[in-house]
């Protein structure tokens, strides 16, 4: 998977770059609109992460140019929150998704996974982890072909942890993923624990799940 990161903040671009490379993607960075278009024209990319505020222009111009071509590349717009017009604009011009800054890298990888899966016509339908299989199209989980009943939230939490396996996912990240961007400051996120506890109970019935770790009092990690 080739990914083009268009972000003018060099450090941020590098962080995203490292993260995505670790996750197995092949990445390239562009800092300006011109660089981005040059890269787009000279190489084949599966997805582009597009920051809107670029030094030599608006990221939308890049998006418009890309959409005029026949390229099927997925575009995820990265924007500062709340510029609602921007979001609507972005989706109109053919952005596949948007993420508001500051975003969690794990959230980025989950969105990237969904977008890439979509542009490839949903050919990838299962995720498996230590014998458990997640059926992505109907939100079901099974173990040795035995179905396990999960609620929508439990499934979402499980999928998110699996997509970001071997990484610590904090409660905050999980909460934001499930409930979206909660504006409320200091909303306590303990209620996520209830869902995780239930999820674990359901999985534990079928096989020992010592790979499903609680990391100190901070978050969770699924190891493989």
């Amino acid at each position, binding site marked *: 998977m080739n990914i083009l990161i268009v972000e003018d903040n060099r450090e941020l671009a590098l962080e995203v770059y490292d993260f995505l490379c670790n996750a197995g993607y092949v990445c390239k960075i562009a800092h300006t609109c011109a660089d981005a278009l040059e890269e787009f024209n000279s190489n084949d990319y599966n997805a582009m992460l597009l920051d809107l505020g670029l030094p030599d222009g608006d990221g939308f111009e890049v998006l418009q140019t890309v959409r005029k071509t026949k390229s099927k590349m997925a575009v995820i717009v990265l924007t500062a929150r*709340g510029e609602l017009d921007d979001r609507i604009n972005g989706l109109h011009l053919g952005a596949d998704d948007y993420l508001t800054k500051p975003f969690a890298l794990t959230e980025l990888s989950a969105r990237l996974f969904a977008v890439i899966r979509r542009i490839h016509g949903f050919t990838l339908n299962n995720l498996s982890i230590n014998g458990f299989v997640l059926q992505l199209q109907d939100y079901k989980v099974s173990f040795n072909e035995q179905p396990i009943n999960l609620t929508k939230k439990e499934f979402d939490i499980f999928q998110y942890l699996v997509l970001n396996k071997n990484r610590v996912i*904090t409660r905050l990240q999980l909460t934001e993923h499930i409930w979206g961007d909660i504006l409320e400051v200091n909303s306590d996120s303990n209620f996520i624990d209830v869902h995780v506890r239930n999820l674990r109970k359901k999985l534990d019935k079928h096989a020992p799940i010592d790979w499903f770790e609680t990391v100190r009092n901070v978050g969770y990690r699924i190891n493989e």
Partner: protein
Amino acid sequence: MKIKHQLAIFNALTRLLVILILWLMLPILVQNVVYHHINNSLLEKKKKFIEHLNQEEINDFIENPDDSTETFSEFSTLHSEFLVLSRVPIKPHQKKTTFTNEFRKIENEESEYRILQHHFTYEGEYYQLEIGSSLSEVNDLTFVIRFFILIVFVVILFITFLADTFYIEYLLKPFYKIIDTKIRRVNEPETFDHTPIKALSRDFRELDFVLNQMMDRISEVFKKEKQFISNVSHELLTPIALLKTKLENLLQNESLDDNAFDKIAGSLKTLDMLKKIINNLLLISRIDNNQYEANEEINLKEIVSDLQEDLQDRIDDREIEFVNKMQNSFAFLGNKTLIHILIYNLVTNAIKYNKPNGSIIVEDGFTTDHYFILVKDSGIGMDESQLEKIFSRFARISSDQEGQGLGLAIAQSIASFHHVEITVESELGKGTSFGLWFQKPIKS
């Protein structure tokens, strides 16, 4: 009442007052003129009479053997005038000619006369001469004049009132145009119409000019603010994004000891708080800067049930009972995202400040002018000094509670953006009730 009506009515009233005074003064004026005229003619007659006077004539007048009173009277046929000459034994006190109004009975017909009285001496004898002229005709005439003038006045009053109304309307037209097309749109500087308004009066042209200038300045400020907000969003949130990704990546480092791990996790939490505060402040600024559209049809009942679903985990977590008593479907135009945030903030507030096993009731209803939603909780409540400042930014209800106190400030910004009134009632220890009052649409 509009100024054009007030002006027209005021003009009509002052005119009416002038007319009334004139009308009341009319009899006096007419009388003065008429009496002056009659007096002159009476004096003329007296002069003629005295000039032609001789003893023979006097004797002819007076010495009528049938009459012992020594008086001579003469009447015109229609009793409009009379003349009386009488010999008086003593010299009268007054010598001058005097005029009086008196009722006289002449041949059984009483009527009012203007009478000239004159005393004179002729060959050692004293005489009194009275010449009278009837006033009945004059009185009739005065009445007729008053009546006609009354009609004329009423007609004048009516015509001038109409003329006034139309002229004032015409004069004030630019003024109303300014109100309709400009002043009412002060809150939307982007859509402000700068075309100068044609006006006959210089005052309105000046007003229009100054308004345009003012709006130019306001839209300039609005634009700058918008630019500023956008810059702040980008410039503040990008470094936060950088810090966040760095810390999240750092957290994955296997060689971290527990202490460092906790510190990084703590920093991430603080960073999250910072992000939310910035986003909240930006949200308030954006609302106050009119950056949101308000053209979606909003179903409040739907929003409340969506919210209940979203917040069910937190409600269960605090073991609170949530009672949704929304019954009416009241739809209005607004911004769905914002209204969602508004009600979300009120409900989460009710969750946060509730007691364990408490309850939250959301209900709605109609009054004569409003549709209202009440969010009531059985929480800790507030006293009056706390109530005063709950809508101001960063006001925390109690010191032992967390939260940055922006939720209600946002709620108020959203409410005033939608012209919705937000009210709060609270009793310490018993609970708080927030009300949202939506204006009913005016039926046209």
